[in-house]
């Protein structure tokens, strides 16, 4: 008699030996599947985690008039895995009609320099490489690859709330 795996004695459809070998294979596959799938999800979970940042109250909306974007400063609580840090940050807030507000990330999309609003030209100017954006954040001239990044903004009871995560917009 041979000792090979799954070799049946004469005339048997499935003997004890190959039955046990199959059980071991199935159990082994089940264990590998559980360990593999849970381990893999643990490892790649950051890829599917949504960036959730708290809404930050940056002030009342009545100070912000159409045609004159305002720079607002605020303190954002930033979650970094288990660490929570408070970071001073700012945003440029513009409005067309006093009801809908747009908040821009205060860094130029070229190389991250802080830009400013030029009231006379009614444009955002970046001092580093002479980039110009219009009041809607679109590139007028200069090297930036895409319009100004935006923060999600909403108005609740006359207060402007923003979520300080830069959202990219297509060029």
């Amino acid at each position, binding site marked *: 008699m041979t000792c090979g795996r799954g070799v049946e004695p004469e005339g048997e459809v499935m003997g004890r030996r190959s039955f046990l070998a199959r059980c071991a294979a199935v159990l082994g596959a089940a264990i590998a599947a559980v360990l593999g799938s849970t381990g893999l999800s643990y490892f790649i979970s950051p890829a599917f985690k949504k960036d959730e940042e708290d809404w930050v109250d940056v002030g009342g909306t009545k100070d912000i008039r159409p045609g004159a974007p305002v720079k607002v400063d605020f303190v954002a609580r930033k979650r970094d*895995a*288990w*660490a929570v840090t408070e970071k001073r940050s700012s945003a440029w807030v513009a409005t067309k009609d006093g009801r809908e507000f747009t908040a821009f990330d205060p860094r130029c999309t070229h190389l991250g320099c802080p830009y400013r609003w030029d009231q006379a030209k009614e444009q955002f100017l970046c001092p580093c490489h002479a980039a110009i954006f219009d009041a809607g954040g679109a590139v007028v001239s200069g090297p930036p690859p895409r319009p100004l990044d935006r923060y999600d903004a909403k108005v609740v009871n006359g207060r402007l709330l923003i979520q300080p995560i830069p959202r990219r917009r297509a060029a």
Partner: protein
Amino acid sequence: MKNALILARDWIVERTGFDRVWEVLFERHVPEAKGPAAWLYTLGSASLFVFLVQVVTGSLLAMNYVPSPDHAYDSVRFIGEKVLCGSFIRGLHHWGASFMVVLVVAHMLRIYFMGSYKYPREGTWMVGVVLLLLVVGLGFTGYLLPWDQKAYWATAVGTNIAEQTPFIGPLVAKVLKGSSELGAATLPRFYALHVLVLPAAMLLGLGVHLFLVVWHGISEPPERARRPGEAP
């Protein structure tokens, strides 16, 4: 006394067959290379030696290093300034890392230009390529650990390069960073890869690689082809 040593040796040999193992590993035939070319045959052993140095010095460094953004930089400074021989051990690990990349690339070039990757040694070559990638991975993950400006921005650049991959780039970058931003999740992730995952894979690969080297023997240096009419 001498008798006792022989007795001890015989006791071990009888129970482990170690004399045969020794014979196979260290008394095997190697090509008779002459001149400077002979040195090229030392590159694999040199890589192995530097890897062992990295294992020893790395284990020592891990005894004082803390992979947390709050403490990583200070713990590395502590190793350099306060621990006896700390700067020497860290220096060995630092230079060993660079030297290791140089050695394994030189080793690969030797194999390539001497044609040693050919039948029947393709498996050795393939495992060797994996080992080369593991060395690069160890270098990349280890570079972040001092958590200084150079480490941080080099890793920012590295993960941004990964992000440029078509379709899967952003996912790969997030998995590497453990978050969408390089930070508190990234450092322990890189540390775990650097001290657990990659060295374990490396040891496994080295085992297979060395087994195959011994199994097939070392290839002869290539010979110049005879010109037409030249005597053999």
